[in-house]
């Protein structure tokens, strides 16, 4: 993703393109030809359902019938102001229907926390793999993928066993005599959701960071040492900046899917651990209001898209400034 943005920035700087060039056009045609199987699949399983979702979000549900007249009512409902104040975690919402807004903020905070935790956990692992492991690297990488050999659902469920009332942590602490009664704050709250999300995504994230660390030219590190950099300074000035592309794409890889996660809050979240995905699911099923559910999920998509764009633009800006400074 970062590479794409990077290329776009470079393309923007390198002057106008020449679409009339026949060689270029041939190349483009060949490119589309190569892409067509994937493109067709994307249209069938991504673009078409998305289009259906967009259309649906402009309709309304009244009782058992779907009213097919075009209206922005669903979107208006998400932002319609009201005199009534709803207090949530110190924030005041003056909305007639504050639930989606609050849940969006909550989900963003929860998955940002999970993302930071994942990066902090995965970076040292990737660093070790790239710089300290010299033999049997393939075996190490395969070991990293072991968690993927079981289904995501089972991994989430096993956290329920670990954190549960008579689970591994509680019975361990009790048998050591550290606590008398099981700790109840471990499970069924937003923290449990964040822990579970962080764990299940770590192994995903080690690989992209590892790849970017592995690509770093070792002679640069030697040069830094020769010129008198301490180990820490060398890391900060060479290793960290050069591993940024991998780290950033890894962060996006965790952040984007976890915001809308539904199954993790459902299993370990309890009454207070709900996220925006839970609301969308409820709207589509129990509340029987698919159009509103469609509007909520589209708004969520736009917000995530906007956040990612802002993030990438900032990075591009920083990079340009760094280059100019150099």
């Amino acid at each position: 993703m970062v590479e794409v943005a990077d290329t776009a920035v470079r393309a923007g700087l390198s002057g106008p393109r020449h679409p009339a060039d026949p060689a270029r056009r041939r190349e483009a045609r060949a490119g589309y030809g190569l892409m067509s199987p994937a493109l067709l699949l994307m249209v069938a399983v991504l673009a078409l359902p998305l289009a259906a979702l967009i259309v649906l979000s402009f309709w309304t549900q009244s009782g058992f019938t779907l009213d097919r007249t075009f209206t922005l009512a669903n979107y208006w409902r998400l932002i319609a102001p009201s005199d009534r104040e709803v207090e949530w975690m110190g924030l005041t919402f003056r909305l007639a229907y504050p639930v989606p807004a609050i849940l969006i903020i909550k989900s963003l905070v929860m998955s940002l926390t999970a993302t930071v935790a994942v990066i902090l956990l995965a970076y040292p692992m990737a660093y070790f793999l790239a710089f300290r492991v010299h033999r049997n690297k393939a075996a190490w990488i395969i070991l990293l993928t072991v968690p993927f050999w079981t289904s995501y659902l089972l991994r989430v469920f096993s956290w329920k066993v670990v954190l549960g009332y008579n689970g591994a942590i509680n019975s361990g602490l009790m048998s050591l005599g550290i606590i008398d009664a099981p700790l109840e704050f471990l499970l069924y709250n937003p923290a449990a959701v964040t822990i579970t999300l962080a764990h299940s995504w770590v192994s995903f994230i080690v690989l992209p960071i590892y790849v970017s660390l592995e690509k770093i030219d070792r002679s640069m590190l030697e040069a830094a040492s020769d010129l008198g950099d301490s180990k820490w300074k060398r890391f900060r000035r060479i290793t960290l900046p050069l591993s940024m592309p991998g780290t950033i794409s890894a962060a996006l890889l965790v952040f984007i899917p976890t915001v809308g996660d539904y199954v993790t809050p459902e299993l370990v979240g309890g009454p207070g651990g709900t996220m925006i995905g839970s609301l969308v699911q409820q709207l589509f099923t129990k509340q029987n209001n698919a159009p509103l559910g469609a509007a909520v999920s589209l708004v969520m998509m736009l917000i995530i898209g906007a956040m990612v764009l802002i993030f990438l633009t900032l990075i591009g800006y920083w990079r340009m400034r760094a280059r100019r400074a150099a």
Partner: protein
Amino acid sequence: MQRHKFVDRMYQGKVSRREMMKAAGAFGVGTAMLPRMATAADILTCLEWGGYDDPSYYQPFMAKYGEAPNFSIFAGEEEALAKVLAGFAADVMHPCNYSVGRFVSAGLTVPIDTGRLTHWDDIFPVLKSAQGVVVNGDVVMAPADWGNSSIAYRPDLVEPDFLEDPSWSILYDDRYAGRVSTLDNELVVQIGLMVAGQKYEDVYDMTGPEFEAAAQEWGKKGLDTARFLWTDATTLQQAMASGEIVAAYAWNDLVGNLRNEGVPIAYANPKEGMFTWFCGLTLLNTGSADDAAAYDFLDAWLAPETGKLLIDESGYGHANMKSFDIADPAAVENMGLTDPVAMMETSLIFLTPPDAVQEEQTRIWEDLKALQF
């Protein structure tokens, strides 16, 4: 040389679909390649509560067709209703007296021809004509199982005052914060109002600001006190067995199951009243199966043998009077009341609110849950 022949015939377009499927099936790709409908069509598609998909509940059907219907499990009727409305083609649904009206209003039901049910004559007469079984003059639900909703509790873990004077207030009591559980349903608000002294008959169809205020007070209190809200009885059963949960809104079967496991468990008769429900099977017009199969399935559920199993294993009642004659006398004794009439007179029977009220209550409850932190 079978293989060559097959390829030749395939080129000439002489291979029938059946042969093609057989050949593809040899490689394990048969069902993956063609849509389900093209292969052996499902005999019947049922929307069912978790646990009721067990073949022992419809043995005569199994004996006749040799395989179970295709089940889709739901946790609440509103969820099942939304699924059908979204296009899920089910033939049979298992609603209850208070929820079947929603399916009728949605225009999804088919009146049942009771003449085609061999066990109909043995059904308790009071159930045959009860509201929910008969809607607008049509029989829309074949009554099958009935039972209670009350508080299951661990007598060894609750405070003595609850043992003396059991009350639904335990689910809203700060002393039990994180130790109780309720069904994920707007009933949490209604039961809270009953704790506050109101009658169920007056609160089941409460709407507007009144219900919203009640949700803010009692629903919130219930959510704050609950460890989790249950949607499948198994999760609750495990939590009660371990002692994580000491009291919960539960159905009769949980008590029976835990007692069989040797867990100290009791079923309260709270002073605000315990609930009675009766459920049954409804024919839906969305399915594609032969209605003879649907009637066979209904008949299997009404069979006294199924009733015996419900009584012996789960402590539920059954609609067929004969099932009480063949059930284990000890289990019948354990149930207490075996006559649905007496049961309904001494407890609160679940009522059906109008559609708009049901939708509003569901929405308010879901919004309340979403804002819990």
